[in-house]
């Protein structure tokens, strides 16, 4: 996370202001530090202060990753849908880049959620995967839809067409989040229902509850930090493409000018 800087060209108004040579800034460094501190607390509470559960034993420690990752994945996907809708309305770069960043991070976190769920399912249910279970299969479908979103973003196409296609896929994919969330209540499922926001009272207490909330905070801070960096990478990519395109156009113009000049000499 080193941040190399170089001075702006002499003679410009911004001579004294250093220009970032990476996607880091003072803000992201502070946020990154906060994320690290929060991660240390989460690890301490997950492995030291939180004891093995009476029923679940040490597998409860898998839930400190599984529950926060899925919640923050949903959050990323909802931001993605909002940014996608805003892009279709305004057609500006900012919402498109935000959608690209949150879509990619969302699918990554959801993939880890599925993996953590499988690791929890094997010792608890006796199986890594149950195809007949609505929560598991609908989550996999959501994951595949966002994988499709990321794929469409990376297929070479005119920028406007790519952005529009991916925005539409992002909005459609987000429509699946609510059915996935409610699947344990709408249909019978091996997967347990709500733990924290259960009607009545929370089913988790003490150090276990704190470890879970600490996990939420850590993954939220991490996702925010990562979104900023991923956003800047997308922005830099667009700038690099535009700069290179400008250079190619300038070369072609120079070549065309030289040819015209050459023909003029013949005549």
């Amino acid at each position, binding site marked *: *996370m080193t941040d*190399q800087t*170089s001075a*702006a*060209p002499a003679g*410009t108004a911004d001579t004294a202001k250093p*220009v*970032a*040579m*990476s*996607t*880091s*800034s003072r803000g992201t460094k502070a946020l990154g530090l906060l994320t690290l501190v929060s991660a240390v607390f989460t690890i301490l509470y997950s492995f030291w202060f939180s004891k093995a*559960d*009476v*029923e*679940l*034993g*040490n*597998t409860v*420690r*898998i839930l400190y*990753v*599984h529950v926060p*990752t899925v919640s923050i994945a949903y959050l990323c996907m909802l931001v993605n849908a909002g940014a996608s809708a805003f892009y279709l309305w305004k057609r500006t770069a*900012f919402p498109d880049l935000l959608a690209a960043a949150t879509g990619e991070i969302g699918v*990554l976190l959801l*993939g*880890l959620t599925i*993996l*953590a769920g499988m*690791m*929890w399912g*094997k*010792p*608890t249910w006796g199986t890594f995967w149950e195809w007949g279970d609505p929560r598991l299969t609908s989550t996999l479908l959501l994951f595949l839809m966002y994988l499709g979103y990321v794929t469409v973003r990376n297929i070479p196409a005119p920028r406007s067409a790519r952005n529009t296609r991916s925005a539409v896929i992002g909005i459609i994919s987000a429509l699946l989040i609510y059915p996935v969330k409610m699947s344990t209540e709408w249909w019978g499922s091996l997967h347990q229902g709500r733990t924290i926001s259960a009607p009545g009272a929370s089913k988790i207490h003490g150090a276990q509850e704190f470890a879970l909330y600490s996990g939420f905070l850590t993954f939220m801070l*991490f996702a925010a930090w*990562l979104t900023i*960096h*991923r956003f*800047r*990478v997308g*922005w*830099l*990519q667009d*700038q*690099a493409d535009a*700069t*290179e395109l400008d250079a190619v156009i300038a070369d072609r113009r120079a070549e065309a000018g030289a040819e015209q000049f050459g023909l003029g000499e013949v005549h």
Partner: protein
Amino acid sequence: MIAQQIQNGEAWTYVGITWGATAVVLGGYVLLILRRGKALSKRVPEDKRRWM
């Protein structure tokens, strides 16, 4: 009881895989993003490298 079925050693294996995979995948992605950012910064003129 489920707790009796979940042997301690077996549970720790799955806990280790979950936390280890999470750290490796997210750490790898972070490295990828930071490296891409650095590489792209070199291709973009200085006046276009400032953040919005």
